[in-house]
């Protein structure tokens, strides 16, 4: 991955949105999902994104995850304009720098935990033995050693989300994007997941951007960004450990 070979690291924040707008449809029916959002996130931050439904936070996450591109404005990832990348180049960027955790876990059914975690490594062309080793380490990091051969159907929600987190971190990504990771879990499991994310943020210096509805969960973050009507409404620095 040479996409960042020409960047000037240090001068740029890890993630920078420059007046990003996203418009679906055209003319009178146009729907403005994002309106001139400006945002920058530095390496090592733990950011919680909050806001009511339809406020644009999901669209923003899709753009940050390189799954979608802005209609206007620029998204710079380590100084590289993602808007100028092809679909495949964005896939390579996701594969090398980003990890995803979804509300619905999104694991492959009837596939063991270990194989689920190995999946992103397959697309990176990692050899089978190394894949297995790294997947086992990742499962251990989320506290699931001994559960490798279990399929998602045999795991509880909290365990499934841990497998998903293991899958996201197995590639040692720079950024972990979590879309309501605790949305389907009870409060005890939710706290465990948040503690796990906090630990990864501290120990591995993985930058985390997390969408959540719950204040309790947002409290784990070092910075909270609120969206309203497609724009950043307010920002609050928590004064956490990573700042």
């Amino acid at each position: 991955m040479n996409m960042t070979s020409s960047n000037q690291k240090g001068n740029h924040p890890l993630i920078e949105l420059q007046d990003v707008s996203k418009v679906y449809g055209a003319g009178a029916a146009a729907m403005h999902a994002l309106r001139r959002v400006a945002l920058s996130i530095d390496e090592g931050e733990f950011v919680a994104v909050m806001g009511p439904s339809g406020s644009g936070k999901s669209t923003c996450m899709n753009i940050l995850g390189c799954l979608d591109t802005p209609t206007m404005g620029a998204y710079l990832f380590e100084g590289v304009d993602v808007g100028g990348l092809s679909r495949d180049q964005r896939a390579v960027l996701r594969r090398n720098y980003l990890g995803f955790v979804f509300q619905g876990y999104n694991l492959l059914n009837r596939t063991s935990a270990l194989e689920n975690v190995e999946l992103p490594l397959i697309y990176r062309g990692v050899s089978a033995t190394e894949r297995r080793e790294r997947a086992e380490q990742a499962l251990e990091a989320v506290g699931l050693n001994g559960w490798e051969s279990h399929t998602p159907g045999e795991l509880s929600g909290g365990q499934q989300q841990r497998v998903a987190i293991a899958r996201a971190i197995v590639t040692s990504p720079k950024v972990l994007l979590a879309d309501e990771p605790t949305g389907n879990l009870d409060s005890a499991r939710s706290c465990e997941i948040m503690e796990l994310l906090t630990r990864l943020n501290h120990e591995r210096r993985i930058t985390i951007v997390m969408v959540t509805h719950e204040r309790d969960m947002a409290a784990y973050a070092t910075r909270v960004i609120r969206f309203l009507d497609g724009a950043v409404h307010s920002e609050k620095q928590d004064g956490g450990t990573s700042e």
Partner: protein
Amino acid sequence: MIWETILLALRQIRRNVMRSSLTILGIVIGVSAVITMVTLGGGATAKVTSDIAKLGTNLLLVRPGQGFRGPGGTRSTEDMFAVGDAEAIGRDISGLSGVAPMASQGTQAIYGNQNWSTTVTGSTNDYLEVRNWQLEKGRQFTGGELRAGKAVCILGATVRKELFGGLDPLGTTIRLEKLACQVIGVLESKGESSFGTDQDDFVLIPLRTLQRRIAGNTDVSAIYVSAQDGVSTKKVEQDIERLMRERRHISSADEDNFHVRDMQELVSTMTGTTRVLTGLLGAVAAVSLLVGGIGIMNIMLVSVTERTREIGIRLAIGALERDVLIQFLVEAVVLSSSGGLIGVLLGIVGAIVGARFLGVPFVFDPGIVVISFAVSGAVGVLFGYFPARRAGQLDPIEALRHE
């Protein structure tokens, strides 16, 4: 990577065993039908060719009448030949290796209390040569026997078996209706002809004996002529036609009242017919391959829809469009070529059984096996590509939202 993709595809297929096997049924039927048809066709062609070789090579058949003339085969003026005609052919036409005038009729062959209904053929020793008959034991006719019309006979294998069973017929006397006849030879068996008639079911006696003592006339109903190797049968045919028109006093305005049939032409006509039939059957079978391919496309499209979420996950965590396309393409190809493999095995078994049933030799043709297996793989690529491309081009955001 490609090996892992194949393993992944196999696992996916195993998850839906029922559906997968129904899907490949079309390919299985198509491939096995193609192989069975083409192999049996090849066997039939081989049989026809070898049968005609048994009939005699470079063989021409001269018969009175105008040959096949529409329904009923009206033979207007059926003037039989005489022995003189055959002698004239042998004398005046060059490049011949044998001329055998013959006449035959149905008869009852009797030995002891055994009784067999057969055909008695009167001819000369040339008959054995032009029709490619080998003596299993005994001898041919002598010149004296032929000239004098002696009561001697040579038995076809079927007649010998029916009358004598395991006994040695040489030297014994059988009766052909009222004629007592000494057996001087036995012919080797040729088996069934391609028309399904038993070629071994006849008794050969000198032509003169037949004419005088059985038929009571001097008719010759056909003349077999064989050309020497390297002599054009076409030219011999023309020479005979010219000679016979002269001898039978046919004016240039009139049509022939006899016909000459070149057996070589019969060979090419019959093998040609067999080939056309094989081609047609093969084509029908190939259509079922096409139908099988459409079945695979259908099931792959269903599979892509069902697994939209999985595709979304793969794309989100870094699979390229190409990775997903290859995954589904490989799945389609694995599906179709496993159908092809089963079809090849079934087709070979079917051809062996069919060959035994139809009495044609089993001629194994590796070419058609390779071709039909390759076609089954190609069907997978062809009909799997569209669904696979559709999978690869899915929008990951939409795909992840899919329930």
